[in-house]
């Protein structure tokens, strides 16, 4: 193409999306109002009252509530398999699911950098809408602030969520028992490697796609199938190794994992090999570990494989061993996994 204009049979429409966020969008006046009416309310409001007041009034079921909050500062904002919007909604939904709770409602707070394209904000709000619909949760209240150009990274999003606990027994590290089987809901490391490949323009072929997704459905199915869930943990920042170490340390147990049973897709493994990274420590956004009693492990695995065929039983909570330890059995023995002292950095060659 030699010009920037494509032939179109329709009339040209003024492209309001080419506009950028200004400081006034966060000042509470006309532009703030317009931002809410043009972008956030169409995407999020399900009733005329949603997003119209200082706070939201929500009907909650009786029983225990789960409550969670998380902030999202990912770069790049858009990546294969998702964007910061889907990440922020799925992150809150998944944290609630890990408490054995069905999400009821979410809040969303945006810190937007002056100059951020409104077109991108609209796209992010759209993917938040899709993610919320997929998880069956409402976004009922929110906030927008604008910071000066150069003082943000495009956009930061905080989401908080309330959920109704639906498991008959508590789901927490305190319930973990020796003999429990450790199941991972799918292959690990996709999200972190997808982000790194996009951020650094590494161009893996085929591209690595993030696993960013709500895990509500598999968790609800596990509950419907009356699988006794001792503990659930999503495998986000710090990856599988960090999640299991945290559980082992809180529960005061020892775990043993089989390296050969841990599912890692060939593209992720290849990318980790090239960069000298350990997939056990790479972030996921749609994967979780479930710890269940040994006699429920096969049934739990069958449920999880309905959602992702790569789900696998990867280890056991040991009868004996060092408290708070997670050992990985390899070819010539086993070694103890450890929390990383610092972020993994790619190696030289």
């Amino acid at each position, binding site marked *: 193409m030699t010009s920037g204009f494509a032939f179109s049979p329709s009339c040209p429409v003024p492209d309001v999306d080419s506009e950028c966020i200004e400081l006034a969008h966060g000042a509470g006046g006309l532009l703030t109002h317009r931002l809410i009416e043009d972008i956030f309310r169409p995407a999020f409001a399900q009733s005329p009252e949603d997003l119209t007041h200082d706070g939201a009034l929500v009907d909650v079921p009786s029983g225990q509530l789960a409550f969670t909050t998380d902030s999202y500062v990912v770069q790049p904002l858009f990546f294969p398999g998702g964007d910061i919007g889907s990440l922020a909604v799925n992150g809150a939904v998944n944290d609630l699911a890990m408490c054995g709770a069905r999400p009821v409602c979410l809040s969303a707070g945006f810190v937007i950098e002056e100059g951020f394209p409104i077109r991108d904000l609209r796209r992010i709000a759209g993917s938040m809408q899709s993610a919320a619909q997929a998880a069956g949760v409402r976004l009922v209240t929110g906030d927008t602030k604008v910071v000066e150009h150069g003082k943000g990274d495009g956009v930061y999003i905080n989401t908080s969520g309330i959920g109704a606990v639906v498991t008959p027994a508590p789901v927490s590290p305190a319930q973990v028992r*020796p003999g429990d089987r450790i199941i991972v809901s799918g292959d690990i490391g996709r999200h972190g490697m997808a982000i790194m490949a996009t951020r*650094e323009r*590494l161009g893996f072929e085929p591209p690595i796609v993030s696993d960013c997704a709500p895990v509500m459905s598999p968790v609800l199915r596990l509950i419907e199938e009356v699988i006794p869930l001792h503990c659930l943990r999503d495998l986000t920042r710090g990856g599988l190794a960090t999640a299991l170490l945290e559980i082992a340390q809180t529960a*005061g*147990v*020892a775990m043993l994992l089989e390296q*050969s049973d841990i599912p890692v897709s*060939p*593209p992720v*493994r*290849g990318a980790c*090999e090239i960069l*000298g990274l350990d997939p056990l420590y790479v972030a996921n956004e749609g994967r979780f570990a479930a710890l269940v009693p040994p006699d429920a492990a096969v049934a739990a695995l069958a449920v999880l494989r309905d959602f992702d065929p790569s789900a696998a039983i990867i280890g056991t909570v*040991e*009868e*004996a*061993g*060092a*408290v*708070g*330890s997670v050992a990985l059995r*390899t*070819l*010539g*023995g*086993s*070694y*103890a996994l*450890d929390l*990383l*002292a*610092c972020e*993994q*950095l*790619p*190696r*030289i*060659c």
Partner: protein
Amino acid sequence: MKHLDEYRDPETARRYADAVAEIVTRPWTIMEICGGQTHSIVRHGIDRMLPDGVTLLHGPGCPVCVTPPGMIDAAIAIASRPEVIFCSFGDMLRVPGNDRSLLAAKARGADVRMVYSPVDAVKIAQDNPGREVVFFAIGFETTAPATAMAVLQAQGMGVGNFSLLVSHVLVPPAMEALLSDPANGVQGFLAAGHVCTITGYKDYEPIARCHRIPIVVTGFEPVDLLQGLYMVIRQLEDGRCEVENQYSRSVRPEGNPEARDAVGRVFGVQAQDWRGMGRIEASGLGLSERFAAFDALHRFPMITPGAERASECISGEVLRGARKPSDCPAFAKGCTPEHPLGATMVSSEGACAAYYRYRRPALAATV
């Protein structure tokens, strides 16, 4: 990628370990050159699959570990200048010089950026014509071709604000230096597969002949390593000292001629300081006269790399294979990845980091 799984298959690995046990009649000491091989050996417990008499020594092939501290100090001095954007491979950022690391300099305001390829640094230079962009060119024969390509590209496109702080090192002279130390106990080498993918292995033939030592070019997966060890031990038991190629799926005898040609055009061989090993003749690469304009030390003449200061860290001996990380009194006590005393505890290819990660003494409390 199914390919890779073949080289991790536990059954095949065990068959090679059994085959080694069958042919060994006496103790042998073998050094793997490359830090990537060290990590794979320690992580998968390859050394524990071998018969008792077979000892593995870990060699100097960790590119960031052998970069001299004085050069890192110079890197920090350059990076701290306001006009400079300093680009480096990620793994180098945490390694301390005599005082601190590039990551610490970044926290103090230096514009230090992690890149995956020197060509990315050329792009940064094009995008920032008002700044001086300096790339920290370190590593063995594996990274030198990409550095050479970046220089040729910058020259071709007339990018005048791009320069290099060069600390490239060569493997064969380091092997010679190790063997010339009478205290060395090395009886066979696993040569680094990635390096030989670039250079081929003809340069290793005089070393094998002169020092009467078998050298097997070896890959990085468990089956590669066990097969390479089998080939070295087979030679030792037969009394042979040849250069053999286990990693033939990647390495050709002549290497990669295009890559070698690029290196030959841009660099000349020169004496080089190695961290912990001192100065080794003809063991480094420097920009040739034609490309001297790209030398950051010419562009910033006020900065001169200093010497390595004495420290309690034994990483020099670890890099020479003279001592194991676990022999160090500070190992996992005063020296951890969080508070490293030396480079070998920092780098993802350093032997001390491998031992810390995979061989730390077990925790005290038990269930």
